[in-house]
């Protein structure tokens, strides 16, 4: 079901299939549109293909067939280098297990994507400090991730994802490794970001997270879209 106007489309997935080896497709003929500023939750049981779908949107993986267009760019036919540049310009990613680099300080972790796009160190530092302050973890800027709690680490990951002002935030089970209270805090943080206009796609198997923090839920079962466009 098309729920967006063409001019507002940020992500357009058209008849995408992703198959590993000779087994059943992880994602099977999925078509989906996500609008600018929308927060979409992709739900489904374990192994349903939701993380694979997120990877396809992020350009971390390539579809076996079909097209993936993000912000008007056909990413399924980009080279690896172009994909990397696409990711660092347009995408911010948050992972279930944070994926922070243990040997970099919090500040260096957050600054890294900005430095990869060529932002001068001083400006990257200002932007990272500002984000850490907004996310209330500025006091940990010189700490290493291993010394932080799960919630603090996820805040660092969110700051890192936002440092380049991406058009799209992708979150793969962002509260999956957190206790419920911290998960709620992170959920609120994401909702706040969406309210300020940040488009995001959340992959979760938590109906609570989906219903509370996403404006629309897409349910994937066995690699296929079971329901799409359910607005919360």
């Amino acid at each position: 079901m098309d729920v967006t106007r063409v001019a507002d489309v940020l992500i357009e997935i058209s008849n995408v299939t992703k198959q590993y080896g000779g087994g059943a497709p992880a994602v099977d003929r999925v078509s989906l549109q996500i609008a600018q500023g929308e927060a979409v939750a992709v739900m489904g049981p374990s192994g349903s293909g939701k993380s694979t779908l997120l990877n396809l949107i992020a350009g971390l993986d390539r579809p076996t067939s079909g097209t993936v267009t993000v912000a008007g760019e056909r990413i399924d036919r980009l080279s690896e280098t172009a994909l990397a540049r696409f990711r660092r310009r347009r995408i911010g990613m948050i992972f279930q297990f944070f994926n922070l680099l243990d040997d970099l300080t919090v500040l260096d972790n957050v600054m890294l994507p900005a430095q990869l796009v060529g932002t001068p160190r001083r400006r990257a530092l200002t932007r990272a400090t500002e984000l850490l302050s907004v996310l209330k973890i500025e006091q940990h800027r010189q700490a290493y991730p291993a010394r932080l709690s799960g919630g603090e680490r996820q805040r660092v990951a969110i700051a890192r994802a936002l440092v380049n002002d991406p058009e799209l935030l992708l979150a793969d089970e962002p509260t999956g490794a957190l206790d419920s209270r911290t998960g709620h805090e992170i959920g609120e943080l994401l909702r706040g970001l969406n309210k300020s206009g940040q488009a995001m796609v959340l992959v979760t198997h938590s109906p609570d997270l989906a219903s509370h923090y996403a404006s629309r839920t897409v349910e994937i079962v066995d690699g296929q879209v079971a329901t799409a466009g359910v607005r919360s």
Partner: protein
Amino acid sequence: MRAVTRAAAGRGMTRRVQKAVIFLVLLATTASATTALALLVVDTGGPFQQAFAAQHGADAVVGINVSRATEQQLAATSRLPEVTSAAGPFQVASMSFDQGGYPGGTVTVAGRAAPGGPVDDVTLTAGRWATRPGEIVIATDLGQGSGTQVSLPIGSKVTVTTAPGHPQLTVVGQALSVTDSAGAWVVPAELPALQAATAHQSDEMLYQFRAAGSAQQVRADVAKVTAALPAGAVAGYAPWQTAASEANGNSSIIAPFVIAFAIMGLALSVLIVTNVVGGVVVSGRRRIGVLKSIGLTPRQVTTAYLTWVGRPAVAGCLLGVVLGNLLAMPVLSHSASVYGVAHQFVPPWVDVVTPLAMCALVGIAALVPAVRASRLSAVQAIATGQAPSQGRGYTAHRLLARLPLPRPVTIGLAAPFARPGRTAVMLAAILFGTTAVLFAVGLDAGLGKAAAGVQTTKGPGQVTVQTGGNNPVFTGSQQRQAIAAISAQLGTAHYVAQASPTVGVSGLTREVNADAFDGNATWLGFDMVTGHWYSGPGQVDVNTVFLTQTGLSVGDTTSLTDGGTNSTVKIVGEVYFPSNQPLLLTSWQTLGGAAAGLTVGQYDIVLKPGVSSQAYGNGLGNALGPNLGMGIYGSGQFFTIATSLIGTLTLMIAVVAGLGVLNTVLLGTRERTHDLGVFKALGMTPREVTAMVVCWVAAPALAAAVIAIPAARTLGGSTLQAMANAAGTAIPASWTHALSPVDLGLLALSGLVIAAAGALLPGTWAARSRTATALRAE
């Protein structure tokens, strides 16, 4: 067991590469170890002594004045208590010969009915022994490497220019006397016909003594023989040490190179093999933990790893031995011809011991970490199989992040600090590789100079012109003809006439060879050890042996006697001229010129840069006509072999060092697969990932380069010195620092090249890995 081995080792790209690395490292290190050990054993194990024992070499070749002693008196000397064996008397004569108009030189020819005997059992290397007059057997090394146009294959004819009637002889065999008792042999009946009309008949006796370990002992023994004979019967003698010194000659020069490379190669082998094999086990710890958790015993795990590592290692060792033998062959075959041994080959025990030692090394390198891992509990093994300990390298990351460099570069530069132990091994590998390159290039320059120095012992200049007839000196018309031809020949840069008289030197009982040049001869290119080339009358340059024998130094004066005329000269320089004979170089005027009887013996020519000496020689040969001969000199085959051997050993060490880096970086990328996935997810391009991984090795490579420069200079300097000692000469100080600081700095960057080459492959693999898969890695 196969299933257990497969389960323990695992599969996949990394394992296949590690197998390939183990195979290649063992192939290269076993080959270099076999080559180095074989050359060491053959060279330092006394090939001369072996040949000497096999051929019953003479401890002393004693010249006899036959007019003063009877055969009975000579035979009686064999019963002296000092003498264990004696042979002779053999009649000998000094003869000059030419072949096809080209001078072949002067040799001592001996009359011998058969090659064998109780002393100096001459080895026939080709053809047969002379059985009738008109036949001659020549020493295998006669004219070898001299570059003259004389070659004496079996069946060729030589004309004896110093004997009445210029008899012609057919070469029927080639042979070698380990003690250089003669340079050619004929049947005894032939010898009187070969003697110059004015020459006195002389014989030689060959002795083996009870005690002849030193030159002093031989001198004492010969003194007993002399005392047992009538006065004046003994005309002189040559101890075996002289023959040994000449035979060892060029081969001894290479020994220090080989020793240095052998030590470096073996040390690097130990380091890399330990690193590679140990790394395989350590990187498999997590898997070991998993296997133990499902029921494998520690012994099964250990055995499985040893089996997995052992297969490529054994294959590499076996092929390495074959390769090592192939590499050693050219040098050994040259050595065999020098020593007069039919064949020299890699000693069988080297072929057995080297691969066994390498396999044992692999076994120990694998056993220690495998046993340690197998003793860990399953949980511990899984835990220690993860990424490096937390906290290591954090400071480096923090500090390097502030550098104004691209972030992938600073992250890469900081990475080695996370694994200091592994980084140290990588640094050592690059250090060995870089040192080997610096050392080899420096020594190659030194060896080139040594080759040039040895060349000057054969004939100064690149081309020489000599008389082709019976007279060893130029007539006036021949001089004019030679000068006209040389002057007209395109490509002539300089030429000078040379006389080669012998002169008496105060303090020396035997006359000394002198080269007197009629004109400026500075361009001949003799390397100066100390002092300077003579610049006026009354000045001479001498070689190291001259100074050693006379006890004089540069700056001293001495008296020369030439044709009954005494003159005082000042020694102004010591030239590099590796020889066991003293030599004096000076101007034509210093020795009195034509008025003192000096005659032109040859013209020395140096060519313009870029002119082919062979092409020049062809042109000049046509212009000179049949009455004048010519010699064209090039560096000997031995130096070509030595240079290529050094190049090969260097390449192997560099390749092994590169493989060591590859393995270390591979382990690093394997450990950090997940982090690499994160970097890529954050937008690091494949090229940036490759650059980051290559930068992992930059700091160790730079450190290695800094250490390698003084290490290579020290090693190179001491090796050259050892080389010079082996050749019995001093060497110019400039040789030990043949490379300028800029050259050294640039060459030291070879460490970066080795490191980058080793890191590039794993870096590229890391860049190509699928991000989504990498992010799932633990």
